[in-house]
């Protein structure tokens, strides 16, 4: 057992080379996850609402998007975006941008399904009543349906954020120095304690994800009480 390797490099696992060099380690993992979930929320909301639309030219593209993205491994998507960019734009995209785009695209398809399920879970009377009071479909969505259903979706969003945090480890393959890559670098430098290093970062990931998961479970139980029923 060589835990001193882990202890010596622990600051590198936390922040990478920051402040002398670029940010890395678990700090970068969190930044990556937060930026991506923010983008994925808005894209996913749009796609989810398109998927629910009665107009075919809105619904079908959303269906195709969701099916394609959900049918493909994230790793594949990351590599595909990374290699697609030079083909269509002549220059390579920085790893960071390319990986964020992949995460946003990937997660937004799952968010879209959450949004769809959340809106469908509301009793139908909500929409009918708001339309009857003279709101347009758009207004009814913005002021009546979404405020209620988005609140109900919060636990699912948190779960999605947990998966995304786990998925950020895949940024490793194109060389973003987040926690997994940082650990690999430490491992390559020392070559004596792979088990200790990987166990440490497993526990680091676990702490973040477990805290969030238990939070979402608590939230779910709490929110079940305020659910509008049909």
């Amino acid at each position, binding site marked *: 057992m060589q835990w001193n390797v882990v202890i010596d490099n622990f600051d590198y696992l936390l922040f990478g080379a920051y402040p002398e060099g670029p940010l890395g380690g678990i700090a970068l993992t969190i930044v990556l996850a937060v930026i991506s979930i923010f983008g994925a929320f808005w894209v996913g909301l749009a796609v989810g609402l398109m998927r629910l639309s009665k107009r075919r030219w809105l619904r079908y593209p959303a269906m195709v998007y969701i099916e394609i993205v959900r049918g493909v491994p994230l*790793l*594949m998507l990351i590599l595909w975006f990374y290699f*697609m960019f030079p*083909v269509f734009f002549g220059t390579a995209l920085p790893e960071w941008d390319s990986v964020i785009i992949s995460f946003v695209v990937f997660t937004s398809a799952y968010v879209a399904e959450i949004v769809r399920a959340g809106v469908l879970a509301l009793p139908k009377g909500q929409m009918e009543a708001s339309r009857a009071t003279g709101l347009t479909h758009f207004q009814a969505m913005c002021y009546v349906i979404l405020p209620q259903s988005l609140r109900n979706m919060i636990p699912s969003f948190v779960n999605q954020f947990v998966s995304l945090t786990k*998925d950020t480890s895949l940024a490793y393959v194109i060389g973003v120095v987040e926690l*997994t890559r940082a650990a690999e670098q430490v491992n390559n430098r020392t070559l004596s304690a*792979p*088990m200790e290093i*990987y166990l440490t970062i497993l526990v680091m990931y676990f702490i973040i994800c477990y805290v969030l998961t238990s939070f979402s479970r608590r939230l779910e139980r709490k929110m079940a009480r305020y659910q509008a029923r049909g």
Partner: protein
Amino acid sequence: MLPRLVLNYQFQWNVVLSGEYLDWIIKGLVVTCQISAVSLFFALVIGTALAVMRLTRFKPFVWFTVAYTEFFRNTPLLVQIFFWYFGSDGLLPRPLLVWLYERDFEFAAGVIALTVYTSAFIAEEIRSGINSIPKNQLEASRACGLSFVQAMRYVILPQAFRIIIPPLISQSLNLIKNSSLCMTIGVAELTYMARQIESYSFRGFEAFTINMVIYLAISLLVSLAINQYNKHFLRMAG
């Protein structure tokens, strides 16, 4: 500043879809299927065992299964793969390791990681399937004189599995998609082969697109199967 769209790239699909490269893709597909099938088998066995252990209400069993599922569900698969590949030196028994090193350690590490990861998810699916069977089924079977194991084997599990099959199928689909991560430790599956074609021919875009189509075809077939099953099952149920 946004990059400008330039379309002077000559797509060469036939380069990737012929000769040696096509062979690689087919070989990769075979390895993907192999690693997924082997892992699925072990994950089903371990997942069922975990779910049943959890239901025994024997405290050490319950603690163990809760710790197992929570830990492996809340950590990234990629790191788990690295852990088993680089760090299993001191964990697995020596003779087993030697035996594996002589054969295909990459494949074995991939199978171990995928099995452990997937079994945690499968255990939860099976547990919720078993929980959805009314409790008095178990009580009634115990009252008839069946032992706990017999009641599970002949009464509860056969009913539960019918409910669990759709989520189990989608878990196996996840498993197939997750098996792509094994390329990072050098298992020559589909994604690895695409990467290799990219570095031999610089036709990365074509290779990855074809791979995406293959994955997509697999998952569309599987979701079609789930829908058919659901329709069939719903008709049977009522």
